[in-house]
């Protein structure tokens, strides 16, 4: 899989590049600012771009804006944004109306190599990867007449893992249950929240996010 990595901190960028290279990715380009990133992505057409949110020129959310641009212009290129802080608003902006090929993770997740690599791969393959922190912020929001209160703790856990973009298989593995059991939970959750069942993982993410942000 071909990757472009963008981060203005050389130390971190080199770290991510080494990590991805060691785990079977081909890093085709590196960028130190948003403009450079867009140029390299357009030139190399990678499967996925790993982008730091805070980058020059303005050092605010340039990385996020570049990511949105890439998603709009090159829908086949996955974008995984790394952020120093949990900002569910950013994640929701980034997802927009399609949760396919998109990810938003806290920067520290890089340290958990296995999960990080899995997330990059998922995004590259057209899936989604939302940080558990972001999801728990969305789920934990105080609501009036909270419909989530009807979920069992197990179902809540499944809901969160679903929102992160994990497949039933991955959820089953994580919770140490069978895939059948996960499927049953998912059906029950969709029933309780009044959502239409979605076949693909990333459509499911979108449905759940739309529900959570409402």
């Amino acid at each position, binding site marked *: 899989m071909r990757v472009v990595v963008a981060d203005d901190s050389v130390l971190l960028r080199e770290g991510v590049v080494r990590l991805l290279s060691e785990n079977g990715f081909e890093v085709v380009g590196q960028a130190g600012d948003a403009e450079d990133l867009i140029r390299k992505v357009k030139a190399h057409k990678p499967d996925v771009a790993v982008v730091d949110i805070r980058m020059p020129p303005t050092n*605010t959310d340039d990385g996020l804006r570049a990511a949105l641009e890439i998603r709009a212009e090159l829908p086949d290129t996955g974008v995984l944004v790394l952020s120093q802080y*949990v*900002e569910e608003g950013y994640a929701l902006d980034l997802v927009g109306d399609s949760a396919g090929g998109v990810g938003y993770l806290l920067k*520290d997740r890089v340290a958990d190599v296995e999960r990080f690599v899995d997330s990059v791969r998922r995004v590259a393959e057209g899936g989604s990867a939302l940080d558990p922190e972001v999801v728990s912020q969305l789920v934990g*929001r105080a*609501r009036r007449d909270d419909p989530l209160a009807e979920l069992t703790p197990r179902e809540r856990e499944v809901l969160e893992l679903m929102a992160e973009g994990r497949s039933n298989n991955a959820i089953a593995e994580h919770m140490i249950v069978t895939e059948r059991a996960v499927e049953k939970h998912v059906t029950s959750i969709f029933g309780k929240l009044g959502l239409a069942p979605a076949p693909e993982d990333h459509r499911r993410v979108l449905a759940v996010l739309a529900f959570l942000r409402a």
Partner: protein
Amino acid sequence: MVATGFAWFLAGLSSVDVPILFSIGLFLGSVWVVTTMHTLLAAPHGRLSTGDRRIVTAAYLLVTVGILPLFFFFDPASECEECPENVFLVERNDTAVDIFGTAINLTGVVLVVLVLRSLVRRWRAATRAERRLYAPMYGAGVALMLALIGQLALQSAIGQSDALVAVSLLSMLPFALVPYLFLGALVRARYVQGGAVGALVARLAEAPAERNLRDALAEALDDPSLELHYWLPERRQFVDSDGRPVEPPEEGSGRAITTIERDGECIAGIVHDATLPEAQEHVRRVGAAAYLALENERLDAELRAKIDELRASRQRMLQIGLEERRRLERNLHDGAQQRLVAMALNIRLARAKLNDDPLAADRLLAGAGEELDAALAELRELARGIHPAVLSDRGLGTALETLASRAPVPVELAELPDERLPEAVELAAYFVVAEALTNVAKYANASHATVGVARQNGRVLVEVSDDGVGGANPENGTGLRGLADRLAVLEGRLEVDSERGRGTTVRARIPCG
């Protein structure tokens, strides 16, 4: 006074020969005394206090109804032979006449003493200016009352005599003077008041810049204790000329405040000796004449108040800054730093065991990893508290959405600005909402809160309200106080409505070009 004239005329009837007129004169011959009392007590404003009204009513009853039995038994023939007969006479009974006469006289003395007491009290309560005006009239009144006491006492003690006649005649003098002195005082009052306004205007025109406005007004109103309070509409508070907050006098404290207004806006209050509403009208006229000077002084006082406020708020900001630093240092020291130390230790230990005991090394490294995660999470939260990145990245709207979604109480976002505001304004508004929502979560016991930010008339209005228990006092908590200071730097203001049981509304107004 007119009634007194008629009553006096009635008394004159007692010298007439026609029996019926003579009888009426005899019967109503004392009414004039009471009308005079009435005039004295009602002067100068024509109204009687409740106590005075009781005295006057009792006196009227005494000289009309109370005196009746006397006339059923009194035969004038007992005292003068040429007098016509009393047409009301039922039966001559000298003993009854004596008894009733004495009783009536004694009651009369009591009433006259009460009138005297009322007059003395009035004198004590009067302001200097009033005393000067009404002194002659009160003097004549007191003299008349004293003469009446003498007259009644003599009549009871020794009956008709030369001394009694002398005292009666003597009492005629003050009686005759009362109306003239009263009229004189009224005329003089108008004259003095008109003159005071004229002199004041002249004086202010001569030296408008001098800070002698209070003295000029004190002189014009002849009240050396006069004070000026200036109204600061922004603070809704009176201040003195140095800009220090002052409380207007309470009712019944002997002092009154008369506000001077212009175009419906209060400018200043003149604090003076408490007097009746008519006198306040005069104070108001004098104040209106000095309007321009008062407005100048008010602006001056406002400036001083603002300087004081700024000084105090700067001091507090400094304090807040110091405390904030201390808090940050503590958080860093107790949190992230400790974790990093522990992590460094774990890593070194793991390195030492790497070859001998790989399992232990793995455990140590796992521990180090956990410490690292926790340290990162803490640093993230700390950074958010110092300055939320989303605020500078995306502006107030998005930042408030995040705040709302993190609040433990459901928060409804009403109006939010879709444009970017100046950075300082956004930050201040953000902290207002953050602090208010923290308070909602901590104290309000609310089921939900509403946040709104609107731009209006060159200001940003930030409002956070909840449906909780209310009763928050901005003076008590350091949080709200700190907010007020933060806002003061931007010339903004903080209001807190928090009636017990009615929820709390925190409102901040920040000027924004």
